[in-house]
């Protein structure tokens, strides 16, 4: 069955998405990249755009995501994925173009590129993984690191007078005129995962209907660098982190009315 086809019986109710490659990933136990990857792959399949998609991989833990998602892919320099995606989309406006970026990539080194891509109403989709730390490089302080959070480069805890505050990307980008869709989701419970899928579906829909720039921020975990067991990491997202980074839809345009 597909989303528009007729139902037949017996029917398969669960399988690996076509766009998700059947290999073991390099992600740590308890990390939510796997969940976000699966949601991405399911949504690619749902819209049947696998053969017209170009993905832009970030620098960070997801740098190897082209090993897992079965579409055309390019790398981007650290933080530059929205600019690279702009170049791809301008060359092929009829292709589906997405970036997948972590908090260091998108909210620190790539702040300029994400804001201006959103402001141009660039018709791309961004999956933003916020796990409050630099995972790949070994758990340094990120722009989204919580106040008081100890990391490899904030060993005494993040202190606002020295390091500023954790940056709220979904809210920030919602203030930008060119943004069509901006939402924050989490993937720590089955109910949250269902809502995350819905948000990604809407983000894809915005691009396909040419409404403009769409972003879904995922509150993710990093048990390895947080020094936590996976279940404790889930609890941290459900409590402390989603307390500061509220889940929800911050912007949703009905159509491209910013003419």
């Amino acid at each position: 069955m597909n989303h528009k086809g007729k139902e037949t019986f017996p029917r398969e109710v669960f399988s690996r998405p076509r766009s998700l490659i059947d290999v073991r990933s390099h992600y740590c136990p308890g990390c939510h990249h796997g969940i976000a990857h699966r949601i991405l792959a399911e949504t690619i399949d749902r819209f049947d755009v696998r053969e017209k998609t170009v993905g832009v991989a970030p620098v960070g833990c997801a740098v190897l995501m082209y090993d897992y998602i079965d579409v055309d892919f390019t790398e981007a320099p650290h933080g530059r994925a929205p600019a690279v995606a702009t170049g791809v989309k301008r060359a092929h406006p009829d292709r589906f173009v997405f970036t997948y970026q972590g908090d260091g990539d998108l909210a620190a080194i790539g702040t300029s590129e994400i804001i201006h891509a959103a402001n141009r109403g660039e018709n791309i989709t961004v999956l933003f993984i916020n796990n409050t730390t630099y995972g790949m490089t070994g758990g340094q302080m990120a722009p989204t690191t919580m106040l008081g959070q100890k990391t490899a480069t904030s060993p005494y805890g993040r202190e606002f007078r020295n390091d500023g505050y954790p940056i709220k990307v979904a809210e920030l980008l919602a203030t930008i005129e060119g943004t069509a869709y901006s939402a924050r989701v989490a993937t720590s419970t089955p109910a949250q995962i269902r809502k995350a899928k819905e948000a990604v579906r809407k983000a894809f829909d915005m691009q396909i209907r040419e409404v403009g720039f769409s972003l879904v921020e995922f509150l993710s975990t990093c048990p390895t660098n947080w020094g936590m067991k996976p279940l404790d990491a889930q609890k941290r997202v459900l409590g402390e982190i989603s307390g500061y980074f509220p889940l929800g839809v911050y912007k949703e345009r009905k159509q491209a009315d910013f003419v």
Partner: protein
Amino acid sequence: MTLAASGIRRELMKGNEAICVGAIAAGCRFYYGYPITPQNDIPEYMAAHLPPIGGMFLQAESEVATINFLLGTSAAGKRVMTSSSGPGISLMQEGLSYMAGMELPAVIVNISRSGPGLGGIAPSQGDYFQAVKGGGHGGYRMPVLAPHSVQEMYSLTMRAFDLSDKYRNPAMILGDAVIGQMKEPFVPTPYLPAVSAEKPWALTGCAGRERRIVKSLYLKDDEIEVHNWKLHRKYAAMQEEEVLYESYCMDGARVVIVAFGTAARVSKTAIQVARREGIPVGMLRPVTLFPFPSREVNEAAGAADAILVIEMNTGQMLEDVRMSTRHHDRIRFLGKPCAIPAPEEILQEIRRLAGEIGARPVRVR
């Protein structure tokens, strides 16, 4: 066939505009850029002329974004160009390194100005090292073409697109404010593609084929070493096949000037006067700065009594000239970091050198 019979009209344009005409003739329909003096004629021309022919002009928020727009459009299989000047070209070095590693073609124009830092907008050749030695990280090269006339701004831009596609590597036009801003007639000869337009690596969505990945990250085993040797072989092939230079008044020359771009242009004037005085002086003008005409420089140095390197910097190409030959005792240098050398200054140096080597003019005043 004469020019009149061919129907091609001569054009009177600025060098910067001739670059745009050459790029469009070569099929470039994507231009991205960010304002900086002295190259603003290029984005302004492209903003006016690309959209009407179905092309894309986009002004970026920075040169960092610009080069990554190029990266994306190049990965998508399209010919794409940007232009900037020193400070902006510096911001593009990260992207250029990635593009060299990812083997992505594009044309980057540097209408250079004086540096370092914000420097000034006077013409300079201070970006030679950055252009020819791989300005970004990791060790890479790109073809660097140095026009010395508006005609060459046009024709070398077309060649830069072919070279970048042939080698799947960025290519650079290194000009300066003089060549960029001066107007002179040029002949817009038709573009004859020297490479196939096929790009069997381009990202277009994987319909009907295996999916493709464009990347520069190689973590497994000795992949990155293998990749580096592959890139090195491309640079070696450029050195073998792509050297361009001009021999000017080299018949019997005992003093040989080596200069490029504006410095070479001015040198021609001085050489003409010196030749009228009977001084046997000529010029070997590198048109490709990478690959550098090392063999030709060595031959000239072997045959001449003196090599006069003239640059609008304090001696950068000078190092490549020294590396090209063992005749170091014959090499002299005349440099002006932030100004154009006057023909009189060059002439004076030619006369002095002619005296030094005993090649005194046949007729002296």
